[in-house]
């Protein structure tokens, strides 16, 4: 009976299958990127970047209507611009990267709201910007899967420099010229995945599926490779459970998915063996000197 409740929605309805495929693609592509964001203590960068993307997608929509290509391109351009310029500012001036990123994404966001508002009360746009995972068409699915594939391959190729960047950026800079390249490629991946995720979950929820599984996973394992694995697993489980909750209890699907991921995070926070609340309270044997 439980199996039926899990299988039946996907077997009967094409939109559920599409939603599932879309979410699994995002889990596969965005979550590893989220792991590295977290390891580099840049978790909030994802949030900032998602706001930076929003105006670009909005402009794309205003120019070309509900066009997947225009909105993707717009979001990509706005996101990359903010990412690269803030990275440039932080390397060329005395300002820290967080400050320059915050400044730029706020400028970008305000600009977007301004442009949207001058075009009249086109509130439709808010709807478009928040996306819906239940309305993925062929084009959107191909885009999501392409981004996921590209993201997985890139993370695999750059895995060692990425881990090194997290652990000891000074060391990486001293032994390899890949440091700057790694950093910019990584920022590109963040933007790319957020743009892809925004078609399914909207800009804000896409950050959720990027960061929450990573934050939950760190309570269970310590090596970066295992962390990527468990985070992707949590993301996929959250996607599927969220969709099923949305199906059986009529919750809106995007928030349902993210809240399940949030549940995983809370659970991990309490019982996770690596720094969880309960395991820390259990007294362990002292190592004797």
């Amino acid at each position, binding site marked *: 009976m439980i199996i039926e409740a899990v299988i039946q*929605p996907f077997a*009967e*309805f*094409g*939109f*559920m299958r*599409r*939603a599932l495929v879309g979410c699994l693609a995002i889990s596969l592509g965005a979550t590893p990127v989220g792991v590295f964001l977290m390891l580099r203590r840049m978790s909030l960068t994802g949030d900032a970047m998602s706001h930076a993307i929003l105006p670009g997608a909005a402009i794309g929509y205003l120019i070309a209507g*509900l066009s997947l290509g225009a909105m993707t391109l717009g979001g990509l351009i706005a996101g990359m611009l903010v990412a690269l310029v803030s990275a440039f500012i932080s390397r060329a001036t005395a300002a820290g990267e967080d400050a320059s990123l915050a400044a730029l994404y706020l400028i970008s966001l305000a600009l977007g709201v301004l442009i949207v508002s001058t075009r*009249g*009360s*086109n*509130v*439709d746009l*808010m*709807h*478009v910007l*928040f996306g*819906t995972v*239940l*309305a*993925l*068409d062929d084009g959107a699915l191909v885009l999501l899967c392409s981004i996921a594939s590209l993201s997985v391959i890139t993370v695999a190729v750059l895995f060692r420099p990425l881990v090194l960047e997290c652990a000891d950026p000074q060391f990486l800079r001293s032994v390899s010229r890949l440091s700057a390249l790694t950093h910019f490629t990584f920022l590109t991946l963040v933007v790319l995945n957020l743009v892809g995720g925004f078609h399914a979950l909207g800009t804000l929820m896409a950050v959720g599926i990027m960061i929450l599984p990573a934050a939950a996973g760190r309570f269970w394992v310590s090596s970066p490779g295992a962390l990527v694995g468990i985070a992707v697993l949590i993301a996929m489980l959250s996607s599927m459970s969220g*969709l099923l909750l*949305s*199906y*059986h*209890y*009529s*919750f*809106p*699907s*995007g*928030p*349902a998915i993210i809240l399940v991921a949030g549940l995983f995070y809370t659970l991990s926070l309490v019982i996770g063996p690596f720094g969880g609340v309960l395991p820390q309270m259990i007294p362990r044997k002292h190592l004797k000197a």
Partner: protein
Amino acid sequence: MRYRNPLALAATGVALSLLGSAAVPAQTPTPVVASFSILGDMAERIGGPQVDVVTLVGPGGDAHVYQPTPQAAQAVSDAELFIVNGLQFEGWLDRLVDASDFTGQRVVVTDGIEPIAFGEAADAPAGHGDHGHDDHGHDHGHDHGASDPHAWQSVPNAVTYVENITAALVAADPAHADRFEQRAQRYIAELEALDERIRATIESLPADQRTVVTSHDAFQYFADEYGVNFFSPQGVSTESEASAGDVAALIETMRERNVSAVFFENITDTRLLERIADETGARIGGTLYPGALSESDGPAPSYIEMMEHNAETLEQALGADHEESQS
């Protein structure tokens, strides 16, 4: 219907306050603010050159989620009449009135209309029992507990709108009462002819071909008045996000009833309906206008043209279905 220069508005306001609001000279039009495009259209039809109408939510805008601008507050504070739909259609209304020191008369056009609660319209098709409405339970459960504000979707209600607006204009500018009433009579005659046409159009459709899907749950009054069943995947407001359960229930209902036409409306994201149409094999049947007029070069620049466009769009899609199923 047009957005006026705020300076001119302010000047009008100053001029009016200097002259005293009781005795408006004949050559000064009464400043009127209408909350959205349909009311603006009606006010202009009735008021003619004796009123100066500013419409807050213009063509194509969504009045559910409108955010008032300072110009809007300015226009409202300068207005003598503020024509609103009521039934909580304009959620932003009270805030705007508070913010703008509005001292004029607020005209609620739905006064005297029997509101339909959400989700009950299709269960009680009034006075059209001869067209076999089978059970139309709404399978999407929305517990709003309030009334559906889209009352203008029934033309007899629109006549009430016109009467309410006319009464308010007469009270505000008694000197031109005759002209307002003349125009209102002509307008009401046109509306009654429109009502007849819509009835004839819908009655020409086979009774088992009158179930359609739209992306906005705004046609309950139309359903109730003319006997067409509407289903919506999303509930009444563009603010809420659809859930997988609602969409699945809709698809099942559409499969059961063999619904073969899906309509887009002018103000909501169409991607979800495209999916549903794809999944059920239903055809996409043009655009229905629920609550906002189109621009003047579009198919629905006025209330009458909007209602006519909706009826024709329904006829085309459903009539075509009929031929298809017979062949």
